[in-house]
């Protein structure tokens, strides 16, 4: 091409290129391959070569175009095919071995491979044959990933060949430059940019127009336009993609800026780690210079502007403008205090303007389409779009451009497609390593400069890292801090030393050596670094740490107080993830190892040290341990619950008598003291047995005729046969615990009676949460409306009584042939549904106001699966608004729900769509929308309770009344058995401490560690698979309460136990302790039973 002699030469050139491109498309198939760094990393080069080979072999006259990155990193390599000027269709994940079929079917047979296609990129000019085959294919802009995006700076990325200036010119490239040179004064350019409200996309958010103006007004003949392409955030690649995919946009933006400021020289400071970006920039500069779009007398005007490249060595701090200038000048890349600002004294002491790649790339578009257009996008104070590199635990990782002001949650859950592998959202880090982590409660925050800052994070240059519940926030803060301190230049004291001290403290916390004082120190250091550091790096180094302290203080405290890493990531704190995850902290690897060796009694003893209900938990535990089992990374998690159930049942012939705990001296003090436990559920019974083991005289008062709490009164018999249940409750009694049933608090006795009259030294309230929440809708009082928990209790009463006396007595509603509706998505709802089916209901409908994925019962996936399997029908996104019927229920009117903004659990809140209501005919309606403790026995304000009527306790489980402790569901709200057991363990320690010393420190329930040497070679079980859970045949479940889940046999249980990877032994290596040897004495000797 010839040098352009004037501005008027540009439009004819553009038209001729556009015609040539259209002609190319018509002349044969065109194959576009995404060749950004991300694509190449995913194998695009190999795919490209395979395509070249294939079309050469078949002699197809196809043209291959390398384009940049379209942003769908998770789907690379991307291949876009256009046949005969028709529609572009986009294929994802095209590996070399897929190429022959792709070419065969799409190019030869003209039949696109439907299953590999993801969208139609653009409609063709000519109608053609292929349209039939791709008829229902979504448009690119309608994909969830792109639906909410507005692509300005990324407008050309992935669509043009970045190595050809023609492609850029064809898409209005350099038109903006032509326009300003032709008819705008520099002041007009600045005015337009100012009016557009463009704020610095490097993260500072300073008005770009104002910055240009300052530089223009600064006296001096020599000025510099500098482009900051020193993108160094871990996980961020916005600038790189633009430079690689659309380099001319940056050059054009810089030339416009140069014209506006009166600069003749531009410098792009690009890190050397971006070789492809540098190659493409060099080529682009050369092409633009050849065409007369850079250099002297640009487009025939008297404007001269040259751009050169300066490679950076990759120091993160060189993104700071004064450090960047120092680096260009050849000095050590360190910032200097401002003022003077670079606009006054920058590169070589001359006025200089530094903007980020994205700011320059947006400028030509603003000039072309006008400030008003730009201002209309985004939010009032932050117009335009924000570009993010979306990474981490999110389905659609990639490069996105969204309008400013979009809620954070929309980016993660709509554009990003949510959290993969069924994990839950925990936090999102914005602003790169110097930003902040925002929790679920911030998901409605509009994403713009000011709102993010207000929320506790920063906009930054555009890194966005999503983390799920498997991420330890302390570890995450430490990770970012490690980065920031390693990248500190070392010049100023607060950053260099403060960062190091912070890192040491955080490291100590992740290793279990933290103290509460450390939190104060962290805050003090962070405040100091923020106020007193020289540059932005130091001032924001503490950002992630501060946000973690602000939003995740509990998690930090768990590390400090309990030496527990709740998410199981801190290597020195986590012996094994299964132990770490278990609320009761049961030593799973130890008993699995013993099961593998057939030493069941020893295994059971270890289990009972922390959980006295192995049989019950073998059946009804949600098995949090299995969700974190590391074996799942290999194949499937160990079937821990079933293996445990086998162990417990195998030994059920040898009844357990709880053994004494504590020293003789402790027991001597305890022996004279009495503790009353109210409620014989898992929390109460655990607390009772622990206190009895410690030597206290313990009496349990139970309102219902049978002990067991929710274990007896809520869990249906098909999940938990009552014989097994009572077997374990008998063990508690053998420990010396007296259980008095039919003793209702408030009716048969009062707290004062216990403490003042009956001589109890302390009371533990473990009354559970047995009162149903009300729906609060008309008709709730109609006959046929039964609260879920009441319904289950009636059914359970029958099974309990049958277990004792073999005669069914209870008052169970007759549901045979009836239609039953259940409202809710929790355990009680699912249990009620399956019970209703067993009672002979014709139809069972579960109505839930959110989506199925949001159901609380998802922690028991087998239950939902089982319900579906048995024929329960689920209606999601509906909510009852009225119970219909005269006197008794005939149906329920439901209103469809839509999901609006996010709540604190990262789930979208359902909002009624009043217009869309419908009726479901029903005979029974069972609301199961949650339970609360029954506090009707209590005088108002006798003991402080929360709005959910749970007891307010301190960290030592002490209620507002001294001597009265509370634990279990009565404190936590409805939870699981194992969580209640954990509470029982802890409250027993708290009560013991208080009774012996009068102190109430945060209790820790400590048991010995058991290191069991493996006797088998783990390699022999490398390919062993988890057994399928044996289940009762569907036909055999109908109309009865026979147990659905069948246990494992001895051989299967032993084989399964041997699959355990023994993380606990690796932990010994990590902390430098010797592994147990196979010849060592058994760690836990079998317990004698008297």
């Amino acid at each position, binding site marked *: 091409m010839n040098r352009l002699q004037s501005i008027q030469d540009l439009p004819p050139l553009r038209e001729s290129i556009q015609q040539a491109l259209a002609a190319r498309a018509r002349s044969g198939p065109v194959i576009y391959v995404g060749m950004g760094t991300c694509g190449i990393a995913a194998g695009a080069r190999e795919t490209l070569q395979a395509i070249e080979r294939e079309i050469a072999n078949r002699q197809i006259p196809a043209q291959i175009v390398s384009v940049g990155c379209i942003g769908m990193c998770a789907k690379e390599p991307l291949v876009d095919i256009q046949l005969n000027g028709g529609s572009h269709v986009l294929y994802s994940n095209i590996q070399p071995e897929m190429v022959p079929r792709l070419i065969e079917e799409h190019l030869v047979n003209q039949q696109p491979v439907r299953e590999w296609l993801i969208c139609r990129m653009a409609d063709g000019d000519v109608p053609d044959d292929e349209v039939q085959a791709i008829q229902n294919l979504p448009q690119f802009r309608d994909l969830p990933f792109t639906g909410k995006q507005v692509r300005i700076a990324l407008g050309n990325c992935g669509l043009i060949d970045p190595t050809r200036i023609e492609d850029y010119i064809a898409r209005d490239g350099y038109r903006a430059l032509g326009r300003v040179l032709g008819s705008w004064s520099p002041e007009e350019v600045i005015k337009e940019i100012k009016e557009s409200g463009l704020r610095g996309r490097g993260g500072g958010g300073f008005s770009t127009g104002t910055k240009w103006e300052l530089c223009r007004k600064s006296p001096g003949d020599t000025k510099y336009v500098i482009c900051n392409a020193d993108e160094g955030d871990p996980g961020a690649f916005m600038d790189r993609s633009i430079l690689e995919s659309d380099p001319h946009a940056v050059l054009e933006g810089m030339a416009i800026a140069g014209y506006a400021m009166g600069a003749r020289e531009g410098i792009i400071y690009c890190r050397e780690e971006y070789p492809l970006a540098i190659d493409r920039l060099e080529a682009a500069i050369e092409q633009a210079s050849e065409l007369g779009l850079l250099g002297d007398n640009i487009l025939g005007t008297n404007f001269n502007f040259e751009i050169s490249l300066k490679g950076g060595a990759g120091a993160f701090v060189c993104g700071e403008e004064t450090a960047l200038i120092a680096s260009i000048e050849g000095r050590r890349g360190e910032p200097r205090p401002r*003022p003077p600002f670079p606009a006054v004294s920058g590169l070589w002491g001359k006025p200089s303007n530094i903007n980020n790649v994205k700011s320059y790339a947006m400028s030509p578009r603003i000039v072309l389409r006008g400030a008003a257009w730009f201002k209309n996008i985004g939010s009032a104070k932050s117009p335009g779009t924000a570009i993010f590199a979306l990474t981490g635990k999110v389905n659609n990782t990639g490069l996105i451009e969204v309008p400013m002001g979009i809620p954070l949650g929309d980016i993660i859950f709509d554009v990003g497609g949510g959290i993969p592998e069924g994990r839950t959202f925990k936090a999102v880090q914005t602003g790169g390593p110097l930003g902040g982590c925002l929790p679920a409660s911030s998901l409605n925050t509009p994403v713009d400069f000011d709102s993010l800052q207000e929320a506790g994070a920063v906009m930054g240059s555009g890194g966005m890292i999503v983390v799920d519940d498997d991420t330890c926030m302390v570890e995450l803060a430490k990770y970012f801090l490690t980065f920031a*301190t390693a*990248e500190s230049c070392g010049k100023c*004291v*607060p950053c260099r*030393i403060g960062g190091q001290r912070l890192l040491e403290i955080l490291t100590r916390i992740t290793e279990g050596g933290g103290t509460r004082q450390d939190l104060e*120190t962290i805050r003090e250091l962070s405040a*100091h670094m923020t*106020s007193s550091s020289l540059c932005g790096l130091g001032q924001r180094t503490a950002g992630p740490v501060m946000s973690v302290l602000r939003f995740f203080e509990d998690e930090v405290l768990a590390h400090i107080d309990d030496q527990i890493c709740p998410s199981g990531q801190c290597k020195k704190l986590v012996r094994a993830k299964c132990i770490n995850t278990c609320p009761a902290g049961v030593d799973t690897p130890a008993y699995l190892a013993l099961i593998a060796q057939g030493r069941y009694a020893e295994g059971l003893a270890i289990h009972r040290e922390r959980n006295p209900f192995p049989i019950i938990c073998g059946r009804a535990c949600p098995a949090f341990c299995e969700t974190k089992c590391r074996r799942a990374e290999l194949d499937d998690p160990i079937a821990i619950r079933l293996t445990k159930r086998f162990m417990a049942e195998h030994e059920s012939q040898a009844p357990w008598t709880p053994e004494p705990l504590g020293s003789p001296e402790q027991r001597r003090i305890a022996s004279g003291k009495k503790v009353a436990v109210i409620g014989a559920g898992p929390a109460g019974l655990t607390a009772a047995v622990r206190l009895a083991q410690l030597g206290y005289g313990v009496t349990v008062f139970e309102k219902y005729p049978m002990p067991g709490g929710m274990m007896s009164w809520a869990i249906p018999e098909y999940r938990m046969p009552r014989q097994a249940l009572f077997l374990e409750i008998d063990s508690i009694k053998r420990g010396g615990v007296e259980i008095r049933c039919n003793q209702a608090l408030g009716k048969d006795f009062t707290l004062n009676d216990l403490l003042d009259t009956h001589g109890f030294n302390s009371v533990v309230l473990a009354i559970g949460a047995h009162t149903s929440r009300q729906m609060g809708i008309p008709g709730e009082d109609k006959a046929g409306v039964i609260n879920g928990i009441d319904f289950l209790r009636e059914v359970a009463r029958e099974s309990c009584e049958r277990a004792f006396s073999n005669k069914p007595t209870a008052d169970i509603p007759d549901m045979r042939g009836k239609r039953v509706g259940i409202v809710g998505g929790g355990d009680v709802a699912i249990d009620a549904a399956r019970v209703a089916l067993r009672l002979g209901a014709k139809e069972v409908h579960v109505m839930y106001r959110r989506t199925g994925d949001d159901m609380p019962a998802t922690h028991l996936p087998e239950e939902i699966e089982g319900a579906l399997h048995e024929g329960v029908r689920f209606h999601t996104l509906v909510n009852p608004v009225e119970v219909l019927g005269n006197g008794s229920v005939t149906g329920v009117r439901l209103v469809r729900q839509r999901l609006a903004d996010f709540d604190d659990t990262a789930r979208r809140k359902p909002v009624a769509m009043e217009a869309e209501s419908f009726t479901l005919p029903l005979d029974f309606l069972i609301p199961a929308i949650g339970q609360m403790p029954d506090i009707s026995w209590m005088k108002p304000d006798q003991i402080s309770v929360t709005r959910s009527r749970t007891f307010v306790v301190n960290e030592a489980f002490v209620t507002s009344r001294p001597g009265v402790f509370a634990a279990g569901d009565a404190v936590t709200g409805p939870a699981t058995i194992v969580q209640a057991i954990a509470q029982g363990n802890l409250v027993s320690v708290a009560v013991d401490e208080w009774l012996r010393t009068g102190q109430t420190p945060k209790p820790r329930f400590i048991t010995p560690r058991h290191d069991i040497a493996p006797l088998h070679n783990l390699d022999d079980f490398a390919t062993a698979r988890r057994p399928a859970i044996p289940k009762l045949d569907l036909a055999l479940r109908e109309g009865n309460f026979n147990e659905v889940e069948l246990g494992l046999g001895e051989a299967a249980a032993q084989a399964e136990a041997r699959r355990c990877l023994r993380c606990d032994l690796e932990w010994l290596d990590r902390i430098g302790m010797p592994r147990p040897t196979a010849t060592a004495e058994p760690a836990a000797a079998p317990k004698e039973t008297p």
Partner: protein
Amino acid sequence: MNEPTPVNLTINDQPVQACAGQTVYEAAAAAGIRIPVLCHHPRLKPHGACRICLVEIEKQRGLHPSCTYPVTEGMVVRTDTPAVVASRKMSLHLIFSERTHYCMFCPASGTGETTDCELQRLGYEHGLDCWNYAPNFKKRWPVDASRAYFVMDHGRCILCRRCVRACDEIAANHTLGLTNRGAQTMICADDDTPFGDSTCVSCGTCLQVCPTGALHDRQSAYLGHSTQVTRTAATCLGCAMGCGIQAITRDNHLLRVEGAWDAPNGGLLCAAGRFEVVKPKPERILHPLVKRNGEFVATSWDDALAHVAEKFGDARMVGGLVSPRLTSESLAAFECFFHDVLESSEVALLQGDVPPLDLGTMATLRDVADPDCITLIGGNPGEHQKVLRQLIHRALDNGARLLIVNDESTALDPWADLYLDLEDISFHAASPFEKLRTTYHLRVSGMQQLRKAIAPAERPVLLYGSGLSSTVYAALRSLPDKTRYLPLVNGANAVGAARLGLDARQVRGDAVYVLLGDDSPNGHGLPQSEFTVVQAACRSSWTDAADVVLPSPTWAEQSGHVINLEGRRLPVVQLLQAPPSVQPHWQTLVQLAERMGQTLSPEALTQLAGPE
């Protein structure tokens, strides 16, 4: 220079007037408001790293370093708010936590206002009486003791970079730098080589600016803190530069020498001036010695002088040699003794060269600090005037051009913009063929090149050596008037000696009197004669070969004056008391004259040395 614009601001409610271009720190200091600093040093460019001097500035978010922040009209500054003080204390805590600050084992440690260690002083001032952050005692910080004169203890380094900046900005040697970054940052020499193997010239400027005990010299460390020493302004007698020094003495010992900041050397000294002078001397001569039967016998002044007087009286001709490092007063007395008492003209300097001093307007050393063109003709400032070499480097850093006309290579050659041989300029004017040559383009005149190169300069300085041909000196006289000339004189008081008519040459005589002072006659041969008197402070091969040895005060034990290469008369200040049996030179000469039946009046001798 324009008159600086006055700027009015308020510091701690006190109205302060400053000049545009000043920093807040400077304005405060001028108004008597003290803002503590650590990385800042008045002789170095502001750096803003230590964050000790942070202040609050109204309408500016956060805290700002007063040492870099320029004053603006109407600015309101507070240096003592709780936030400022808290930040300052925190930064101090952090600095103390970073490395191994075992103050009690540090030579810079002291108490109160007068401690050598600025960090420790700030610590006391801010009540840092406990460790807030676990100090890094676990990590071992290296000690670099590879240099002969001083030691770098990284454990005490606070990375203020004063040393690095002094090496760049004052010494212009660019040896020191930084390696690694963040908490791993270390001061290093060159490309992280041991200091002793580096391009370091041991000027010791880094040592002088170090605010802690990280850099300390081997000789004086542990010999006394600031509270226990006496500081005296004096003149270095190492070479003709006559550098201003601060001599640090205690109990009649010279502990340390620092460069005087306000003298033309601006704090700079060379290794000899800073370190060699405090090195232990060879065996001191404390009593007159007379050789009897080949053995020296210690004797009294009376006895020794009587012996010398007798021998001098017998001699036909007495030759005299005198060190150019003695004061003008001593030189004059010696010269006068020979002239008046011995009636001998065979008196000369031991060594020392003074080139012609009448080439044009003489330069001062301050001119050398700020020239835009330096011309070096036939000399090597790196050999005898090492401080001058650093000044040249500094000028080159500031953009001055360097022109060299020389036959010998010097370390400055790589920086030369123009390099000519002496021959290239020695044809000028003096050569009858000059016109012919230029006319026929046989050869471009070197002088023409040189003149062309100097022409654009506004403040050219020309340094020239001794012993050049008269044609060269003649050529130099013809350079433009704006040129300032600085002779490269060898010998601390060689100019003073020249004014007394003394120069270095061979002397004859059947008796010789050598006044050595504390010089070591390395390399020179003692003139052969029948009777030799050597008056020296220390034992050397010459004293061993002498017939009579007389004690002499050292440079630090005498007072008087010297004249340096720029012709400035500099005071020589007595820093130490001489041992009881050592007397001033003039006294010996007066006594000797007396014994020889002549009278020399001390007052007359002093006047001979030149006007006050």
